[in-house]
């Protein structure tokens, strides 16, 4: 079973690393027995790189037992999140 997490509940744009940490903690607080989490970015217009790294990058890198899926992103947000995940994954691997 997957936990569905809708960012729209928290806003439409996210700009800071601290905000990313808040969101990551919010996801972790909702997880019970789920092995997957679906982050729904519907209606999210902008994110900063540091937000993406702190939220999605760290969530995926630090919880390898979780399948972190990200859906419904606009192209610009998708690019930022993809880059952040790749860099964070390689940073952990090193």
């Amino acid at each position: 079973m997957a936990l569905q997490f809708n960012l729209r509940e928290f806003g439409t744009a996210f700009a800071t690393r601290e905000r990313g940490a808040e969101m990551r903690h919010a996801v972790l607080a909702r997880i019970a027995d789920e092995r997957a989490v679906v982050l729904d970015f519907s209606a999210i217009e902008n994110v900063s790189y540091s937000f993406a790294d702190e939220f999605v990058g760290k969530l995926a890198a630090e919880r390898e037992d979780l399948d972190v899926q990200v859906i419904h992103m606009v192209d610009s947000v998708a690019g930022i999140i993809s880059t952040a995940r790749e860099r964070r994954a390689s940073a952990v691997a090193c």
Partner: protein
Amino acid sequence: MGTKITFGRTCGSDGFGADLPLRRDLSEPIVVDLSALRDIHAMFAIRLRIFIDWHVAAGHALQVLPPADAVTAQRLADIGVADGLPADLVELPSPRDGRTDDVLPLTRFVDHTTVEDIARDAVALLRRQTDPLGSWGDAIYMAVGELCDNALQHGRNDLGAYIAADRITEPQPAMRLAIADLGIGIPEHIRSRHPEWYDDDFAISQAITSGVTGTGDPGRGYGFAEVFDQALRTDLVRASSGADIDIRAGEGRIGMRIFGHTEVPERRNVKKPRRGTWITYTVTTAA
């Protein structure tokens, strides 16, 4: 007696040129004379407001003589230099109701809670200059987020950090975003991990390189690089438009010009060392 600091006609137009000393040994009252001033850069407004807040916090008696030119005085008021200050400290006209068409009013922030609102307002300001905004909206949002994040995380000091922006029409339409703090500055921060980077220009140029961080977290150090990358990806970058990022800290000053899908770093002259980190991000669009 007291200390009088007088600005000439053009002193406000170069955001980095304003020399306003933050020293406890200045004799009181301190008078800042802006009467000859014409033209205001967003960074000058921040520099002036930090000077005021710092000396007020130090308990110094201070007075700012406003620009005699009515347009300049109104511009200074609109950008918010006097917002929240006693009227007898800085005598300026009231800000115009529609000032946000032309400026992002000067805002002091001490935590991340207001940064998203500031970033949204900065995007809205640029949209008044160029519509459709295209991917410049993403670039400005990224810039405000990353630069404010840096100011909060690596620029900690009692006053917090400051941001303001303004739009100009000559010589080309441009939006000028300014962010500053009185923290330890980028060179000192990066030297906590790389003490061999003793030259401030070199330390700044390394700090803005992708993957270089002063935090010890190998996943960090990409904020500046992403700001540049976002600007490079914008669909408005061409010969007549582009971006310029100017970073000043300590004795260092590094500029990055972004146009035609290239970025050109360059050293820029510094007359005096300056505490904290001072960054301007200028977006120039075709007329």
